Each structure stands twice: as C-alpha cells, then as structure tokens.
C-alpha cells in the first residue's frame, strides 16, 4: 500500500537521482551525433568495398555473377555483396544505416523518392564530383538522366533501371467476357470504363482492375501518376517548384479513377494477395518485373489509357525506377565508382536485362539489345516504353509531397468524398509550399 505522505516527499536522494538522470540524459544527448566516424572525402581511394542489392531472386542472381566477374579481375579491390537487410522498407534501412555511419559503398536498389532525404542527411556522394561522373551518366541514359538531377543539376543518384508501368490484362478473362483479347479496347478513358464494366457485368472477376487502394505515399505511382504522365506527354508531378497536376489533365485522370471506384469496377479494400494472379481482377497496372511473376497467367499488355487514345509509341508513363547510390560512409570511393561503372556497362546491363527483364536506363535500348528483344517479344513494348518515362520530383520533401497527394486522392477519388477538383487544388497548394522548403 502506498503512503502518500511518504511517497510524495522530495528527499535529497530523490533530488540527486533525478538530477543525475537528467544530467546523464543530456550528456548522452550531447554526444549523440550518430554512430561511426565520417569517411574520407577522397574520391580516388581504392580497396575493398561492400555493396547491397535487392532481395529479388533474379536480381540476386545477376548481382552474384556481377560481383564474381569484378572480383576475378580486381583481387585488391574485392567487393563483398549482400541483400539489403530486412526492414519495413529498403529506404528505412538505408536511412538508418546513413545515420549510424555504416551504410555500404553502393546500394543497387535506391528509390528516387528517398534520394533527396539521403542527400539532405549527407549520406550520398555527389557523382558529378567524379571527373567522368555526369558525362558517364548522360552518355548512358541520354535525356532521361536530367530527371535524376537535384535542383543544382548534380547527380546524387545513378539512373540505373526502370520498370515502365503499363496495363496487363488477362486474355482468358477478356475472351470469357466476349472482349477481343488481342486488341482490347483500353486506349481511351471511355473505352477503358466500358471494357471494365463489361468484365465485371460478365462476372469473370470481381473487379476490372485493382491497384492498391491503401494510403502509403508510393501508391500514387501506380494509379494516378502513369495516367497523368501519359495524358500530359511526360509532365512531372512538380516542375519548376510548382505542382502541375491541378489542371484539366489531372482532373480528368482523377475523375476516371473515381468513376472506376464509384461503379465498383475497382475495389476500395486492399486484396490480401495478388488480385491479378488470383483472377480477382482482370487487369493490373505494373511493370515488366511482373512478367515472370505472372507466369501462369495468359496475359497481354497495353499502354495506360489517355483521354483520346494516344498511340503506344507516343505514350508516356511512370518509370518505377530503382537507382544506385554511392554512400558517403564508403572509405574506398574510387573503387565504388569503378564498380558502379562496371555494373552498368553495356555488357552487365545486357546480363541484367536477360536475368531480370527490367529495363536498364540506357538510351536506344531496343537497338543496343536487339537480339534480346528479338528472342523475347513480350518485352519489346517495355524496351520502347522505357524511353518515355517520368520520375517522381526530386528534393528532400518528395515523400511529404507524395503523401499529401495520396491523402487527397484517397479521400476524393477512392472513397468519393467531396469534390475532386477542390481536393487536387488544395493538395497542389500544399505541395507548392513543400517544394519551396529546404
């Protein structure tokens, strides 16, 4: 039993203990600049390095052969590779590693949306500081490379590979619903809606298309953004510090998706599993990484719809790119840069394409790897589409901007609350403010 008269008395010992606790806490706070020490700024240092790559099975296979090939030629600059440690997301693991000072030299799976934050943290090396940095990037990727520059025109990420987002459709379900499975009418918003309705009315699947309706910031990359890029022929979400999407093209994209949800052609609830693989939806909005995943599905692919049905060879989309970061904690940055160039050489890009089906962010992809595309016709459209992709905006507040957009989208489009135009206008105003903040 407590005795209030005792328990509430402030004794000298209690005062000292409290003071000691606070003092020790403050002392610990003062020396908590982060773990590890700062690495050298020398960009020419060579020696062993560590790299992380994705845990995607195909990428692991490619990564292992790439590392073996490098190590065979460079015994003094050995590369040790491992999959990105498990976490809620790769970006959180990398962010924690930056703060702790134990990030690897290279991460071959760096999301462009996180690069601005990593740069602000002081975690990334400016690749433009290497004598051949910017020139190597721009020779390899051409005009697309510019989307990966920061506001000062520097490259804190290496544009590596993309997964241009298109529409996959289940040919068997389309045929079952009496729709031409070889030339499905999906190019305009009206066609897409009519086809979707036909699919659901025929009862071939509960939903026509089922992008994740959840509130994570990155989900806008797989519903709004591909269609907006297509409708505007490559407009980014934010350009010159201003949100672009509060315009007629943006409103039309939002109205299109809202109609899909309102008519029950898309589901408001997250499907537990892969709705396309499980034939719970007749279409999916994904990139070429999914070709091997949907091995058991008889599917075709078409570009994302536009208001007037843009031809496939003129259609833009979202890149779903993953890039390479060279991290400031790296001791041997000279070796890291050489490994990065080795891993993105024409030969290794070809091996990567062969192993994963993902598109190296390399200009003239269809001609450079003509043999591959001849042998794998399912990937031809992606090879061509890879030259017309848009990226998320750069800067330290990218995730905030995308979350702001997603919140407005969830409310007005997925759940149909309020006016779409007002929601996008308000989101654009908030994003303008975020874009102006350091």
């Amino acid at each position, binding site marked *: 039993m*407590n005795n209030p008269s005792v328990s509430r008395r402030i004794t000298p010992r209690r005062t000292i203990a409290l003071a000691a*606790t606070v003092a*020790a*806490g403050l002392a610990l706070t003062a020396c908590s600049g982060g773990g590890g020490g700062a690495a050298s700024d020398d960009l020419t240092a060579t020696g062993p390095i560590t790299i992380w790559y994705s845990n995607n099975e195909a990428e692991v296979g490619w990564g292992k052969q790439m590392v073996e090939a490098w190590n065979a030629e460079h015994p003094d600059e050995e590369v040790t590779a491992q999959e990105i440690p498990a976490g809620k997301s790769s970006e959180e693991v990398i962010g924690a590693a930056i703060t702790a000072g134990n990030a690897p030299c290279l991460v071959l799976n760096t999301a462009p949306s996180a690069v601005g934050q990593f740069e602000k943290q002081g975690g990334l090396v400016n690749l433009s500081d290497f004598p051949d940095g910017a020139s190597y990037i721009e020779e390899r990727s051409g005009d697309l490379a510019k989307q990966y520059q920061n506001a000062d025109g520097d490259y804190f990420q290496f544009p590596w590979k993309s997964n241009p987002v298109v529409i996959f459709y289940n040919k068997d379900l389309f045929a079952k619903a009496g729709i031409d499975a070889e030339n499905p009418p999906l190019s305009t918003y009206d066609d897409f809606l009519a086809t979707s309705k036909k699919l659901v009315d025929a009862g071939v699947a509960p939903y026509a298309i089922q992008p994740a309706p959840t509130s994570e910031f990155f989900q806008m990359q797989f519903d709004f953004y591909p269609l907006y890029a297509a409708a505007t022929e490559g407009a980014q979400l934010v350009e010159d510090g201003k949100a672009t999407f509060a315009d007629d093209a943006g409103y039309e994209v939002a109205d299109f998706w809202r109609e899909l949800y309102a008519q029950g052609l898309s*589901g408001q609830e997250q499907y537990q599993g892969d709705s396309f693989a499980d034939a719970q939806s007749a279409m999916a909005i994904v990139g070429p990484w999914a070709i091997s995943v949907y091995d058991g599905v008889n599917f075709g692919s078409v570009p994302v719809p536009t208001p007037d049905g843009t031809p496939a060879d003129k259609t833009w989309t979202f890149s779903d790119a993953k890039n390479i970061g060279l991290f400031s*904690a790296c001791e041997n940055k000279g070796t890291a840069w050489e490994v990065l160039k080795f891993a993105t050489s024409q030969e290794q890009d070809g091996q990567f394409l062969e192993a994963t089906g993902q598109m190296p962010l390399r200009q003239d992809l269809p001609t450079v790897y003509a043999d591959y595309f001849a042998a794998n016709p399912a990937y031809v459209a992606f090879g061509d589409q890879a030259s017309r992709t848009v990226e998320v905006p750069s800067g330290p507040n990218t995730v905030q901007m995308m979350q702001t957009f997603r919140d407005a989208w969830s409310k007005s489009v997925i*759940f149909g609350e309020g006016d779409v135009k007002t929601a996008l206008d308000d989101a654009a105003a908030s994003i303008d403010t975020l874009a102006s903040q350091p």
Partner: protein
Amino acid sequence: MKRILGRQPLGLLFSSPYLAFVMVVFAFPIVYAVWISFHDFFFAAPGAEPARPFVGLDNYVAAFSNPAVIRSFGNVGIFLIINVPLTVVLALLLATALNRVVHARTFLRVSYYVPYVTASVAVVAVWLFLFNGNGLVNSLLGPLAPDPSWLINDKLAMPIIALYVTWKQLGFYILLYLAALQNVPKELYESAEMDGGGKIRQFFAVTVPGVRPATLLVLLISTVTGANLFTEPYLLTAGGGPNGASASPVLMMYQLGIQQGQPDVASAIGIVLVLGVLVIAFIQNRFVGERES
C-alpha cells in the same frame, strides 16, 4: 554522506545496473526526444554536422496544424474509450469465472493466453480474413453486413481495431486478475454469504474492491499500450485507413519521423502523447488508486 547515500549504500551498487539500463533505454531517449522537439532536427550522417537551431514551439505548431495528427489523437481517444473499459470488465469477469471453474481450467487459461503470445502479424491475417469485404463475418451477416465493409468504414475501422486489441491482450489481463483473486480472503465471501449476499452482490462487494490494485494496474497498462497503438492500424487497416480514420499518433510519428524525414515534428507528437498518457494515468490513479490507500 549518509543523508545522501542512505542507510544502505550497497543498495545503490546493486541497483545501479538497472539504473543504467533505465538511463540508456528510457531516460536518454526521452530527454533526447524533448531536445529534438524544440530544434530543427533531421537524422544526419556522421560528420555531416548540420545546423540544428532552436525553434521554440515551431515543431509543436507544425504537428498540431496538421489535421491528420489531430485526427489521430481523436482516433486513439476512441480506441481507449472502447478498449480500456472493455478490457477491465471482460478480464475481471472471465478471471472470476475461470477462478471458479474446476474442469478444463488449464485448457481455458491457455486458450485465453494464446492470442496474447501469438505474433500480431499472424493474428492480424486471421482478422483480415474474418472482416474483409468477402470475409466470414460478412458472409454470415449477409444483407446485414455494413457498407462500406468493416475495415474501410470510417465509423467502424477504429472500433474493430479496439475489439481486436481487447481480444488479443485479454489473456494477459486475465492472468493479472487471477493472481489478484488468490489474495482475496475466502472469509470475506463466507461473511457475505452469511449476510445473505448472492453471487452478484459478492462480486461487487468483495471481488471488485478486493482486486482494486490489479484493476489500477490493468487500467494503467492498457492505457499505456493503447496509446502506443501502431501495429494494428499499420497492418489491419493498411496504414491507418480509410482516410486516416484509424491512424494513431504513433503511426503518424512513424510516417512523419521515419518516412518523411521530420523526426523533430514526430518528437513533438511523441512528447504530447507522453504527457497525455501521464494525465490519464494520474486521473486513473486518483479515482481508482487513492481509495486503495
């Protein structure tokens, strides 16, 4: 010296490992969080040494100018209003019943305790299959199923989470009450019976006052764990959906602090949350604990 070190200075030595533990895992983070919440702070690489100017209450203003943050506090309020009383009542009733059960006592105790020791990720998957649009519950309800369905209904999402957490944690609180019930003197029940008190009268006149210390503990623990709600909205309603209707303050801290690189604003939310929990705990102690002494 004796006045400072006490009559048993050796006690300080023995307690120092635990004190060090508390310093590292509790005192340091909370003092650091307070410091962060008053500065322009972001996580930086060693050697980056960014400026971290004192910004006064700016982070608090930024946090509580965000309607999503305000809503998350409202959501967790709804959660606590449902979860805490339900936990106390159900745990006490079930513990009392279990205390009287003669047969299958161990089986029943294990049955209640299994959800508590099972990983939330695994149990959430079961609830998803129960409560999603095509789930078992809606199939049983047929035309009576809510529209929109449970987990995407902004009126029902948080109550479902509260029910889930109540069910999942109940086993632990039942054990606390079972332990407390062993300390209620049997003579009191006999006296009550001799005075003509029935079972219900005995429950309210003997059992409830007899387990009051345990009730205070259950109130405090369920409030503290409830205020720290994260896993369930993260998994069960896919990140606090629909439209933030089930987002909790800790989920907002995760989104703002980890995903969006604003640990300063996230810390401000955390400090307000800690203060809020302290106030609730004080009130609970005042109304339940005081009578104990």
